[in-house]
């Protein structure tokens, strides 16, 4: 039995001798981003810096999808639920003046975990397709509920989120400054990447990969797949909520659209574009998506159609995404055949 080269197979480690590997992508990203930020700062640019910051925020949501899809083998079509939860929590508390930067983040996380455990309790018991549909349904229901709740702003959402200062003790970051916010978000995303990458290489993370590879066998090795999946789901929810909390800080408002299927689907799209199971791929994917949207959006209102088409093409012809181009090519008939689709 040969392993097929598929969307969700784990990336083989790149050997030292190959010229370009995934690790180069990891280094390239902050380098490119810092270059971008410097140029932006010099030019006194705000729009594109803020757009780039939004791309980074969405990258966090993409990471959350990748943890589940690329490592645990679970496709969640409702991660926007936690993103939205984090966003609304932060927006609400910040709008009330009840918390500052750290309070907003911590509150979002504090809400995400119990919700994820509760949701996970039902969702994870369910096999394959049911899980997907339940996560889809959960986000839809939450979106509708928020849409119809006046206290949460209804269809208009919450506005009036103040501009914050993030106090790091030794220094302060002014979130009103596009450059500073961008740098903060860059640091946050790279930090998330490094943390998640570490986690996925620990025995815990490798067990997740094993569950995706052969859940049946994992049981006989002494692991309870359910617990691991639930833990992964909770981690992913926290990552999504954390990213979501940053959104109102950037845009000053939140709306129910943050929980819509479009949001969850876009996140999945960026993961496929970028490369499932690589963590760095989805980050690039998010940037690519926001870039595409901006460029295409300036030509036509109906850019979503084009993105949908590109997505379908990517699924058919390039299932390993951008990062897939940087991965080691394995010897073996299965690889070449799959590559040819």
């Amino acid at each position, binding site marked *: 039995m040969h*392993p097929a080269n598929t969307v969700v197979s784990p990336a083989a480690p790149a050997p030292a001798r190959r010229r370009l590997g995934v690790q180069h992508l990891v280094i390239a990203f902050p380098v490119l981003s810092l270059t971008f930020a410097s140029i932006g700062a010099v030019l006194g640019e705000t729009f594109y810096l803020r757009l780039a910051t939004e791309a980074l925020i969405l990258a966090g949501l993409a990471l959350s999808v990748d943890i589940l899809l690329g490592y645990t083998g679970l496709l969640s079509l409702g991660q926007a639920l936690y993103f939205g939860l984090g966003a609304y929590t932060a927006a609400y508390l910040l709008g009330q003046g009840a918390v500052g930067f750290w309070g907003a983040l911590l509150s979002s996380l504090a809400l995400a975990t119990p919700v994820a455990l509760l949701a996970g309790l039902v969702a994870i018991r369910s096999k394959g397709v049911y899980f997907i549909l339940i996560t889809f349904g959960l986000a839809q229901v939450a979106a509708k509920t928020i849409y119809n709740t006046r206290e949460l702003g209804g269809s208009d959402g919450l506005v009036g989120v103040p501009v914050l200062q993030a106090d790091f003790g030794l220094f302060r970051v002014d979130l009103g400054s596009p450059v500073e916010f961008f740098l903060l978000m860059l640091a946050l995303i790279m930090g998330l990447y490094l943390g998640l990458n*570490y986690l996925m290489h620990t025995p*815990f993370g490798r067990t997740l990969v094993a569950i995706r590879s052969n859940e049946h066998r994992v049981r*006989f090795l002494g*692991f*309870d797949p359910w617990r691991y999946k639930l833990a992964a789901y909770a981690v992913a929810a926290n990552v999504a909520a954390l990213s979501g909390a940053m959104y109102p800080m950037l845009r000053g408002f939140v709306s129910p659209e943050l929980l819509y299927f479009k949001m969850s689907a876009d996140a999945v799209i960026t993961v496929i574009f970028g490369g499932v199971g690589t963590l760095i791929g989805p980050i690039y994917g998010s940037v690519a998506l926001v870039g595409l949207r901006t460029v295409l959006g300036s030509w036509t209102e109906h850019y979503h159609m084009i993105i949908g088409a590109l997505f379908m093409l990517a699924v058919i012809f390039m299932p390993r995404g951008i990062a897939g181009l940087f991965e080691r090519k394995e010897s073996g008939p299965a690889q070449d055949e799959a590559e040819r689709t």
Partner: protein
Amino acid sequence: MNAPAAILEVENLRVSFGGLKAVNDVSFSVQRGSVTSVIGPNGAGKSTLFNLICGAIAPDHGRVRLKGNDVTGWPPNRIARAGLARSFQITNLFFDLPVEENLRLAAQALEPSGKLLRPKRHSQRANAKVRELLERFELSHKAGELAGYLSHGEQRRLEIAVALAGEPELLLLDEPTQGMSHGDTADTSRMIRELARDITVLLIEHDIELVMGLSHWVVVMHQGQKLSEGPPEQVRADPAVRKAYLGEA
């Protein structure tokens, strides 16, 4: 049949699928340190019996006792942690993971759960186990290879190695020599004999010669029921057993 040296006791196990009684009132015990074989024609219920013992399915009736503890109805991961490991008739590896990762996953059970969140290199006991098994099963040169790319014989070896990685006290081997060449079969037989020095082996096999040469005790199953049991020569001479097999041939 309640000798203190019994590591596994199966009492009146029964399970049905639809209307079919796959395992029908089977009882026997396995002595510590022995090699016990379960044989029988196809469809006799041997694999189902294994599934019942290791927790993959729950019996409709009856008990399973491991080391004196009642493990009936326990989930497979709990029974595995209690010292039981099994290999599968149809190779059941992590095909898209490297050989050493397959072993490392199984060996992780040796480590306390705190090690789960620390880098892999900190799980020294597990890592040592992996190296030991790679050598013992002659798979060192294939350590980094994806399990799916191994030859059939190598995969069957890895299948057993993975089962051993958790240092079980009782090892269930489901047709370990399935599809193997003569040479491989002889090697496997030798290996099982070596294993039996440290652990107890419960074996399902089709190869009667292998079974006779290897086992201390043989249990014969037929149509879900225990037909006969005893030392190999006794079972071989049992007319009921001959009838079941000759009828099958």
